[in-house]
C-alpha cells in the first residue's frame, strides 16, 4: 500500500513520476478523442485499428534487428505500428466505399487478418536469437515495468499533441457526429473529417501501446466518454469530462501497476475506468439509474 501511495503522489522516483504523468496525459487524450468515436458510433472501427497495430510492431522489430539496431526501440516500434494501423484503416474505408460489404464486415475482416498476421510475426520473433527477450507480448496488455525515461517522455509528448489536435478539430468533428449531411452542406469534407478522427484514434492507440496495450485501448477510448455522458448534456463539456475520467484512470492505473509490477497495466486502467462508469450509471443526476427510478416513482405518486 505504501508503495502505491508513493506512486500516486509522485514520490516513487523520477522515472515512476514521469510514467504517471505520461499515463495521465495519454488517458486524457484517449478520453477526449474517444468522445468523438462514441458520438459517431464507431467504437468498433477503433478496435480494429488497435488490432492492426500488431503486425507493425513485429515488422519494425525484425527490421531494426536486421539493420543491426536495438529491436526494442520504442519510437521505431510505434512508427511501424502506425503504418500498419493506417493501412488497416484505409482498407476498411475502401471496403466500405467500394464494395457492397457493410462496415461491420470490413471491421471483422481487417481486425482478424491483421491480428493474425501480428501473432504469426510474434511467433517468428520468438524463434529469432535476438527475439527471446524482446518482451513484445507486453504490447498486447501493456506494462510499465522496465519503461525507460525516453519511453515515458514519448508517451507524454504524444498524448499532449493528440489532445491539442482534438481541441483544434472539435467543432468540425462535433458537427460530423451530430448532423453529417448539414456539415457537408456547410462545405465540410465529411470523409476527411472521419479520416482525421480515426487518425487521432490511431495516434492515441499507437502512443498507448506500451502502457495500455492494443487489446484494451478501445476501452480507454470509449468508457470515459460513456461515463461522461451521464454527467452532461453538452458535447462541448463531454469531451473534457471524458478526458478527465480517462486521465484519472490511466494515472491511478499506472501508479498501481508501478507499485505491483506483476500486474499488467492495461487491465488495471480499464477496471478503474469501469468502476467510475458503474458509479456514474447508478448515482448520476437525471440520467443515472437511481435518479430515473425516483423520477418514475414520483410521477406515479403524483398521478395516483
Amino acid at each position, binding site marked *: 500500500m505504501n508503495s502505491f501511495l508513493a506512486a500516486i503522489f509522485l514520490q516513487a522516483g523520477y522515472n515512476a513520476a514521469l510514467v504517471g504523468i505520461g499515463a495521465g496525459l495519454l488517458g486524457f487524450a484517449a478520453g477526449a478523442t474517444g468522445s468523438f468515436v462514441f458520438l459517431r458510433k464507431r467504437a468498433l472501427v477503433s478496435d480494429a485499428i488497435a488490432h492492426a497495430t500488431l503486425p507493425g510492431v513485429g515488422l519494425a522489430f525484425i527490421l531494426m534487428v536486421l539493420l543491426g539496431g536495438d529491436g526494442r526501440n520504442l519510437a521505431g516500434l510505434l512508427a511501424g505500428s502506425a503504418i500498419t494501423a493506417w493501412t488497416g484503416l484505409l482498407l476498411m474505408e475502401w471496403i466500405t466505399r467500394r464494395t457492397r460489404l457493410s462496415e461491420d464486415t470490413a471491421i471483422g475482416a481487417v481486425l482478424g487478418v491483421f491480428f493474425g498476421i501480428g501473432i504469426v510475426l510474434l511467433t517468428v520473433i520468438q524463434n529469432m536469437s535476438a527475439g527471446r527477450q524482446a518482451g513484445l507480448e507486453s504490447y498486447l496488455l501493456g506494462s510499465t515495468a522496465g519503461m525507460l525515461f525516453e519511453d515515458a517522455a514519448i508517451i507524454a509528448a504524444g498524448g499532449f499533441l493528440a489532445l491539442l489536435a482534438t481541441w483544434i478539430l472539435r467543432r468540425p468533428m462535433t458537427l460530423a457526429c*451530430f*448532423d453529417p*449531411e448539414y456539415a*457537408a*452542406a456547410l462545405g465540410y469534407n465529411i470523409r476527411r473529417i472521419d479520416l482525421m478522427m480515426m487518425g487521432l484514434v490511431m495516434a492515441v492507440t499507437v502512443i498507448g501501446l506500451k502502457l495500455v496495450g492494443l487489446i484494451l485501448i478501445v476501452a480507454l477510448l470509449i468508457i470515459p466518454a460513456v461515463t461522461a455522458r451521464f454527467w452532461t*448534456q453538452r458535447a462541448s463539456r463531454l469531451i473534457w469530462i471524458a478526458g478527465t475520467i480517462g486521465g484519472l484512470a490511466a494515472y491511478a492505473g499506472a501508479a498501481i501497476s508501478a507499485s505491483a509490477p506483476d500486474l499488467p497495466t492495461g487491465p488495471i486502467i480499464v477496471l478503474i475506468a469501469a468502476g467510475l462508469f458503474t458509479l456514474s450509471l447508478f448515482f448520476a443526476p437525471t440520467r443515472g439509474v437511481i435518479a430515473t427510478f425516483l423520477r418514475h416513482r414520483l410521477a406515479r405518486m403524483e398521478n395516483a
Partner: protein
Amino acid sequence: MPRAAKPKALPAQAAFSIRALTVSYGEKPAIISIDADFPKAAMSAIIGPNGAGKSTLLKASLGLIPRLSGLVCVADTPLDQALARIAYVPQRASIDWDFPATVLDVVQMGLYRKVGLLGRLSGQMTQRARACLDRVGMVDLLDRQIGQLSGGQQQRVFLARALAQDADLYLLDEPLAGVDAATERTVMDVLKGLRKDGKAIVAVHHDLATVQDYFDHVLLLNVRKIAEGSIAKAFTAETLNNAYGGRLSARHVKELIPNRGKA
C-alpha cells in the same frame, strides 16, 4: 464529378439553377435529367408523390449524394464556390436527438464556418444565435437538451440554425412535416420575412392543399420533371394528374384548384 463550364442559358433572375441532374441508386434511377430555375425573392415548392425523388433532388444539388451528371449554380456561381451562401434545413428524422447538445449549441453550429477552427464563439456570435432563436420563438428554451423538445420545436431549432448562417438561398427538406399548427405558422412567417428581404426559398413540400397559399413557384416532379413555373401555370389539374399518375381523384384535384377548374 463533371465540372463543365457555366452554361450560357441561365436566366438572370434565377437564384438557384439546376441543369441535367441525374441520380441513380444502384441500377435504379432516382431522378432523371432535371432542369430547374428557382427565382429570387420567391418561395418555391418541390412537390411530387412518394419516391418521386424530391429529397434526392435537394441533396444531390447540394452534393450530399453523388450525381451521375448535372450542374448546379447559385445565382451565377458554381455550387462549390457558393456553399457559404446556402442554408440547408435537413429532415428532422435524419438526426439522433439524444445527442448531447442544447438548443443554443445546435444554433451555434450554423456559425461554425464563420468562426473557423481556432476562433472563439464570441459574445457577439452568441447574441446572434439568440436573435435567431427569438425569430422562431424559441429563445426561452435555449438551455434545453434537444431530445426534450417536441417535433415542432425541433423544426424551429433547425430553422434558427439556418437563419444564423445569414444565407441568400434557403433549401428546406419537408419543413412542415409533422409539426403543429403554431409551428407551421411560425415557420411560414419566418420564410415570408426572408422572401421580403429578397432571399430565395426552396422547400420540399408534401401537403398539396397548402401549395397555392404558401408558394409562388412550383416544380412538379416524378423521377422526371413534370412541370415548372408559377403556381398559375404549373400547378394545374393536368400537371397534377401527370405527376401523381391518376392517384388523385378528380374531386380531390378540383378541391385543390377551386378557382381555375380543369386546365
